[in-house]
């Protein structure tokens, strides 16, 4: 039961692997470049604001394509 609970807790954050990986990679890349001083913080804010909804849209559209193909 502990294993089942642990796997369900992990599933709280990861459903579509592509979406989870995209979020982690985007935040890591934007964060690393911001903290290293490659660009100013407001650019990071703009990129996060645009890139995260884009990752959501990519994941939804991918799932929709698969779903409608199956249907």
């Amino acid at each position, binding site marked *: 039961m502990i294993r089942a609970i642990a796997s369900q807790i992990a599933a709280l954050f990861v459903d579509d692997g592509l979406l989870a990986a995209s*979020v982690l990679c985007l935040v890591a890349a934007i964060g690393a470049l911001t903290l290293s001083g490659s660009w100013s913080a*407001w650019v*990071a804010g703009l990129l996060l604001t645009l890139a995260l*909804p884009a990752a959501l849209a990519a994941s939804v559209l991918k799932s*929709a394509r698969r779903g409608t193909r199956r249907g």
Partner: protein
Amino acid sequence: MPNLTTMVSVAGAAFLASLVEAVEALTIVLAVGLARGFRPALTGAASALVALAIIVAALGPLLGAVPVRGLRFVIGVLLLMFGLRWLRKAILRAVGILALHDEDAAFQRETRELAEAERPGPSGLDWIAGAAAFKAVLLEGVEVVFIVIAVGAGRGLLGLASAGALLACLVVAGIGAAIHRPLSRVPENGLKFAVGVMLSAFGLFWTGESLGVPWPGGDAAILAFIAWFLAVAFGLVAFLKPRAAGLA
């Protein structure tokens, strides 16, 4: 001192998210109670609440030890993963690509499985029923604890977020105790849609703030992010719905 916008957003997000989790937990506890008796159902649920209290008591002091900026970053990223996951599913359900979550069907399935499962021995302890209620309440409760910490810890509003979550759990438990049926009329996908939007907005805000982003308007930017994610989500639904309907 957090402003009113932040306080209402934190309490509202915690209340709505906890409402969804409490409805799901209630469905299982009711199924256990009606199929195997309310003694194991309530014992399992109470044991899970004790386990949750231990988790909260253990995690609480740890939160204070983590630097605020690091805490906001971790919470922000986890909120983004959690919120975008909920929002993605809610969009796909709104479009009709994923089936809507049906509390009545979940209740019937759980009741059937429990009715067919092995009955307790002479000792009288119904472990199967107790474990089912324990697992449901623990899992949904862990989600509630995470949401409370995630939306409340970033601005020191854990008390307010806890109050919102507690109110939601009491409302659901009260209605469940009164009607003894799953709350299938709760518009679960609409709630998940709203909560996904709110948690994603909080996640974007905390993540950016931990990186030093000077959000215009301060905490009020959370409202702008809510509007932004809402626009993106509605846009995706509007784009996909005719295509999904045409292929159905």
